[in-house]
Structures are given as structure tokens and as C-alpha cells.
């Protein structure tokens, strides 16, 4: 496709995908870590 700025929109697309993944996955993982820490604390008590 002539006139389409592949470089610019390719980088933008990559950035948006990485951004979405990096919002979704760490939230889930932090929840798991928090749960594990609570369990550990409970066991220590």
C-alpha cells in the first residue's frame, strides 16, 4: 500500500500490544504473589 507509513504504525502497533500485555499479566501475577504472601504469613502465625 503506497503512502502508508509502515515504520510508524508498525512501531505504534508493537507498542500498543506490549502495553496491553504488560497491563494485564502483571496485575494477575501480583494478585497471586499477594495471595501467597498472605498464606505464608498465616502459616508463620
Amino acid at each position: 500500500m503506497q503512502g502508508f507509513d509502515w515504520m510508524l504504525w508498525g512501531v505504534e502497533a508493537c507498542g500498543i500490544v506490549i502495553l496491553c500485555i504488560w497491563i494485564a499479566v502483571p496485575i494477575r501475577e501480583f494478585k497471586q504473589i499477594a495471595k501467597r504472601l498472605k498464606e505464608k504469613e498465616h502459616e508463620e502465625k
Partner: protein
Amino acid sequence: MTWIDYTIIGLFLAGLAVAGLRISRLIKHSDDIFVAGRELTPFILGATITATNLSMYHFISMGGIAFQKGISIIWQNWTGCMALVLSGIFVIPVMRRLQVRSIPEFLEMRYSKPLRIIIGAFWGLRLCIFLGIFLYIAATAGAQITGWDNYFGWLAIFSVIAIMYSAIGGAWAVAIMDSMQFAFIILGGLITLPVAIHLAGGTPSLIHWLQTHGKTVHTQLVPTGMGEFNWLFVLAILLISTKWATVDQAILQRAFGAKNPRVGAQGMVLSGLITVPLAFLWILPGLALARINPPGITNPDHAIPWLLATHLPPIASGLLGLVLCGLVAAQVSTITADINSVATLFTSDVYQALKKKAPTQKQLIYVARFSSLICGALMILFAWLLSFTNSGAVRANLTVVGIVDLPLFIITIVYGLGWKRTTWQGAMAGFFIGGAAGIMSYMFIIPNYFNHTTYPFLSAISGSLAMHAAAWHEHIKVYKDSMLSIAPFVSSGAALLITPIVSLLTKPGKNDQSHKIWANFHVGDDTEDTFHLVPRSRAGKFGVGLVVAGFLSFLIGIISAAHAFPLATVMAVGGMIALFIGGVLRVYVE
């Protein structure tokens, strides 16, 4: 800047403070401050390593160099990404198994306690210089963007935010906040890039313009001729990046927070992988500025702030505030991570190592917080010294790194892991003589490199050196533009030579702990640890093979660029891609 921009930044900073305070409740043990309780998963680790790495240095300073010298500065990121993969596969698993908190701690295990204390103190100081460079960028950008031209006011604002945040939360805060800040960093880049490229008439038009207006070098990924950021720079930055990914305290400390060695390796590979496309987010706006041509800008660190301050507010109110949140986030996360590293070095490697009686957890946490404050004061001092220069943060950073960092890499990784006969005396001599050789190379080739008002002593030595070696100096002074690329080879070459010579002249010490290092080349009893340095599966072996082949192709590509080989860039970039594919296969498929 409008009141909407200030409100957005104010809310963002308040959010950071509240989150920091909430996270501080997680701190129960000093390991929570230093290595986040060793609970981090690959994605969090990848994000936290990337966010620790990304800062205004990339968006402002590297963008500024792209504006001045062209796209080849992107190799500073790309070689860093490659080094993360190599370090993740070959070095981090061994280090993670040793359960060390810092490189000096490793040095005690490998060599001796005095070496740990001396290098711990020296390295803490070195990190304060690095932090000074980061603070300088933040203050320069703050003054340029807001129009409030008070350099010391900005130094104070950024220091207070970073020190408070770092002293409250430790590594847990750094890890969790990094993940959140990472999103803002990317968002800022995603907004700035289309604006800059639009102003330059689109990427194809920009490239055509640069090639037809005497700026062809700006578009070359691997410039072939003489110059500051040419093929030799790519080789030098590869060496520096390898050092960074294997011995940099901030990066290693994040990786040591991994749940197990495999997770450490996965986090490093992921971090390298995502930074490759992201690098365009800060390099392309800089390249676009070469066409936009901001008026009267000589300091590269002023170019991107000019673009933001001039062209974002007319598009939408609050857009500049949003982008600045990303930049402040990037800067705060890097500064806090490094302050955390300095606190680790002083507490764990100097204070704890000097004390005869084991300190309590409370004492350790107190010393960690106190050293964060001292580090903050030193960082302000170095940022003030930097305000006298006009050559930009990238050059300042590469000068320091090229001189003092590589000898540490040589004694820690090359001889520390690779040659059992190395003694602590050899390591100490290699470290200091390597650093001295790096400084001397600058003094010898560029006699007026050190400003005679700010550094009278260094300036005097420099002048007399060149005078006494007049013929030699005349012969090599033509290479002064390539000094950033030459110094790393001089300092690491001297360390490579001196360390084995002194080691062979001294008796090996009776270090009871070094056997642990060699034992950790193999998988231990930990059931969670299944990461073999030499992979067992066919996919793993293929992955390592691809990493090695990709690396060789990259090296051949860069070296052949010196002879203007037409396929040099293709080989270098192709090699890099192969290395990443191999890295992913290695850590995920086995």
C-alpha cells in the same frame, strides 16, 4: 504548560506516594528491601528490568543524539537487549543460585572480603555519579519544558521524590511501581512518536530528505566511515552492554529477585525482547528533529524537551502532562532502583562486612535508609558538576562507563567465573589499573578534555602527558572523535592483561567459599531449579546454537562494516534477530 498538565502530574505523583506507602507494609525482612523477597515472576521481572533500564536518558538524551548524529545510537539499546539474553542464559542462573545480593558479595565468595568492601564502596560511589547524570537530565528537561529555568529547583524536586519513594518501599516498591510506571513510559512514547513523525512529513519522506540533504549517515544503522557513532562505536557499546547486563547492580538486583534461576533467565530474555521495537519510540522522534531543525539548539538534551513543549500543547490540553507522567515515571523508577542498589552496596557490602557482630534486621533497614539519603546528596553534587558541560548526558555516561565499568566486568565475569587461578591481588590490580588506563587514554589523546577550572589536577596531568609524548600524541590525536569507542577497549584490555600477570605472581588464597561458585554451574537440590547451563533437550540445544550463531553473524556484520561490506547491516540485524529467537527457545521450550 497549562494547569491541566500540572494537575495530571500532581495526581500521578500523589498516586505514586500512596502506592509507595501501601507497599512499605510488605516489608518484614531486609530481603524484601533488597531483592523483593525473591518472589518475582518472569513478566514482572521483565517489566521491572525494562522499567529500571528505561528513563529520560533514552527519551531525552538518546533521542537528542539521534537528532545530532543519526539512528546508529539505537545500538546502545539493541546491544543491551542482546546482552540481557546472553546474561540471562549464561550468567544469571549461576549468580541466582549463589543467593547473593550484589556483585561485591560475589567477589567476597570468589576472592576475599577486603576486595568486597573496597569494590562495594567504590561501586556505590560510581552509581552515585550515574544517578547524578540521570538527575541532570531530569532537571534540564524540567527547566526546558516548563519554562521555569531554575536548575537547582528541579534538582531538589526530583531528588526529594526519588529519595522518599526509594527509602519507603525498597525493592518491593521498585518492582511493583516499575510495572505500573512501565505503562506510562510506553504511553508517553506512543503519543510523542506520531507527532514528531507527522511534523517531519512521515517516515519515508523523512528518510528521503535526510539522504538528499547531506545527512545520509543519519539513516545508516551501522555507519561505515570514521566518526563518533560508527561501526567501532557499535563494537564498543556491545562490550559496555555485556558488562551492564552481567554486573550492573540495578539489573542484577532485579534478576536476583526471581523465584528461581529459570525465571531469572526468562525475565532477562523477555526484557531484552520487548525493548527492541520500543527503542524506535525514542530514536525516531530524534531523527525527525533532524529535519524539523529546532532553532538554536547545541546541547542534544534540549532537543526533545523543545519538541514536547512546543508541539504537544497545541494538539490537546493535558497531552503534555500525560507524556510528562511517563517521563517522570521513567526517571523516578530508574533513580529509585539505583538508590536502592547503592543502599544494598553500602549496607550489605560495606557496613555488614565491616561489623564483627551480625547486625539485627532493624539495624540493616536503618542503615539501608540512611545510605539512600547519603546517596541522594552525592547524586545532587554530581548533577551540579554536570551542569558545566554542554555535550549531553549520553557522552558523559559513556565516558564514565568506558573508563571504570569494564575492569569490573573483566575481574568478575571473565576471570571470576572463567579462570580459577585468579587471585584477589590480581583482581584488585586489574580493576584499578584498568580504570587508570581508561582515564589516561582520554588524557593522552585529548589534552584539553578535562576543564581546567572544574578539574585543575586532571587537566594539568593531561597537558603534560601529551607534551612529554609529543610524537606519539601527534600520531594518534586524529582519533579524538572516537574516544568514546576507544576507551572501553583500553580499560578492559589493561584489566585483561594485568589480572593474570599479578595472579600468577601471587599465591592463591585459601578461600573456603569459592568452591560454591564452581558447584553452582550445575543444578542443585532445589526442586524448583531445572535450568541447566548446558541444555538437556534438543530444543534447548538448538536455542543455544541459534544464540551463538546469531551473535557471530552480528559480530561479522559489524566488523565487515569497517570495510563497507554491502550486507554488513543485514548480517548484524539478522544475527540479532536469530539471537532473540534462540534465547526464547532456550528459556521457554526446554
